[in-house]
């Protein structure tokens, strides 16, 4: 049977498989395509749904660090050079 992954493997790096790839493949087992949970997960799923009804308020999402840093930099810039505020507002 043709090895389906060969093309994907070469596609991943754009070259022939590197030795480190071969070592990785030889060292780590590939998960069986028929792998499934050992138990029926539906009872646990039901419990999860009952714990938190769908209409509970959405949790506040974490703000990415980059956004916070950008906002901080803008505040700092505005504090140091208030003259730049109209320029910033113009570009926003």
């Amino acid at each position, binding site marked *: 049977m043709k090895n389906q992954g060969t093309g994907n493997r070469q596609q*991943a790096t754009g070259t022939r498989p590197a030795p480190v790839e071969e070592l990785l493949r030889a060292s780590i087992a*590939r998960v069986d395509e028929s792998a499934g949970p050992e138990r029926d997960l539906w009872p646990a799923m039901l419990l999860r749904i009952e714990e938190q009804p769908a209409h509970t308020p959405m949790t506040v999402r974490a703000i990415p660090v980059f956004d916070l840093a950008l906002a901080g930099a803008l505040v700092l810039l505005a504090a140091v050079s208030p003259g730049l505020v109209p320029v910033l507002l113009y570009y926003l």
Partner: protein
Amino acid sequence: MQNGLSIEMKPAARATCGADAFEALFREHQRAVYGWILRMVRDPGAAEDLTIETFWHIYRSWSRFDTRREFAPWARRIATRVALDWLRAQPRERTEPEEFFTAIPAQRSGDAAVAAQVRQKVVRSLARLPAKLRVAAVLAVVEECPQREIAEALGVSAAAVKLRVWRALRILRRDLERQGIRP
């Protein structure tokens, strides 16, 4: 089915996701979602919990799902995000190398010619990688998933997947060289 998740929803489940429809959806696709998650986290117990977590997110955000689109990429993306969050929360040194060889149902075990000590070093090096690089490398190199599928699941471009795999392999090579293994 190729590499896990191949989900086609039944028309009834597309229209609404009430309790019955959701149970049908869950029962039909839990195995595929579990398999996809197991490929990333490589811990059967955690994969079960994360499968439930993934379906919980699906249940909660069902109203935002565009039913004209395929369910599979959407579910894979949610599952990947849940798995990545879990991997990031784990101490990098926690991974037990034996889990990679014996605890998961494997299509093929590792190469017998590779010494156990080398395997352990490879697995430990892999476990030290940042989660997003580790997942890209495992899905692309070990699991040989289609690149487009990985890109969709990670929410990045195919070029970004290539870059992540390349970076992961470069870090791995350097780490292994430091341990006296020259791939």
